[in-house]
């Protein structure tokens, strides 16, 4: 049941999702894996939407050069808190009605079962495919959805993996060369892609609209490109 406070806090989106939809968000646990450029807008909007429990996972600490895009980390956090802890204190002040859990460390094949246990949707905000394949394997073992996002410069991509319904991430991207150098990125690009990932989560949890199942959304904000590639 939603409280009077929740009915007011979420009133403008309850018009879209219904009270039932809002309750589904409240009862959900969503993992944000990577609390950087994508993870910042993703965690922020998940918190705004009233996702009941948000699990933040990252092994890094905010650096000054992160702040052009990682908007959940502020100058005062640099060198002090881990990224999950830095994000947690803001999100809890932003929305006192949700739970924010953290894991500061790297997800591996050895710890993923334990750390992601009980999660309903996994959001991929990582910056490497090695970690993404760990998530891909996990969601296929558990039969839960994975919302993939990736960005570089002014472009990005989003697709949603649902075991049994869609191709796996590894089938779509069987081999990606890891880039050793720092990847250039304009913060707003991550804002756009992360916002779309949050819409995917809301659609998956409430049944609203159509998630990007077997569809890869490609975006290039420099050239106003929004393109869908059918993956079937």
């Amino acid at each position, binding site marked *: 049941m939603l409280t009077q406070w929740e009915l007011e806090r979420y009133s403008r989106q309850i018009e879209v999702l219904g009270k039932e939809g809002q309750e589904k968000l409240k009862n959900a646990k969503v993992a944000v894996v990577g609390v950087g450029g994508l993870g910042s807008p993703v965690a922020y909007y998940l918190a705004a939407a009233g996702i009941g429990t948000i699990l933040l996972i990252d092994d890094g600490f905010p650096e000054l050069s992160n702040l052009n895009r990682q908007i959940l980390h502020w100058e005062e956090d640099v060198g002090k808190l881990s990224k999950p802890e830095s994000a947690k204190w803001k999100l809890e002040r932003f929305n006192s009605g949700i739970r924010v859990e953290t894991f500061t460390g790297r997800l591996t094949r050895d710890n993923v079962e334990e750390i992601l246990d009980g999660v309903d949707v996994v959001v991929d905000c990582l*910056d490497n495919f090695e970690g993404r394949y760990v998530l891909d394997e996990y969601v296929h073992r558990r039969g839960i959805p994975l919302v993939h996002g990736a*960005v570089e*410069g002014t472009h990005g991509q989003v697709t949603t993996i649902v075991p049994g319904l869609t191709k796996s991430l590894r089938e779509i991207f069987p081999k990606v060369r890891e880039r050793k150098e720092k990847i250039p990125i304009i913060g707003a690009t991550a804002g756009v892609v992360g916002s779309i990932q949050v819409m995917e989560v809301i659609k998956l949890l409430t049944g609203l609209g159509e998630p990007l199942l077997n569809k890869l959304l490609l975006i*290039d904000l420099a050239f106003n490109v929004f393109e869908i*590639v*059918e993956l079937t």
Partner: protein
Amino acid sequence: MRIKVRYFARYRSLIGKGEEEIEVPEGTTVGELVELLKERYPVLKNEVFADDDLADVNVSRNGRYVRFDEVLRDGDVVALFPPVSGG
């Protein structure tokens, strides 16, 4: 036959245009088209496509993801996009 090739993201910047029409022999496969483009644009060969593995480029044909052994037809629209990994 004529094929329209569209370049996305990093490829677009490297090549300097978003799309073009090119003439290819009948029976050309997706993989052969990629090879042809590497010859036409050495910058792709050096900076983007791994020499030993075509999987480093993603290709769609008429809006659908394709494998490299598919044979192209006149009028096809082929899009090339790089895998993106940042977060």
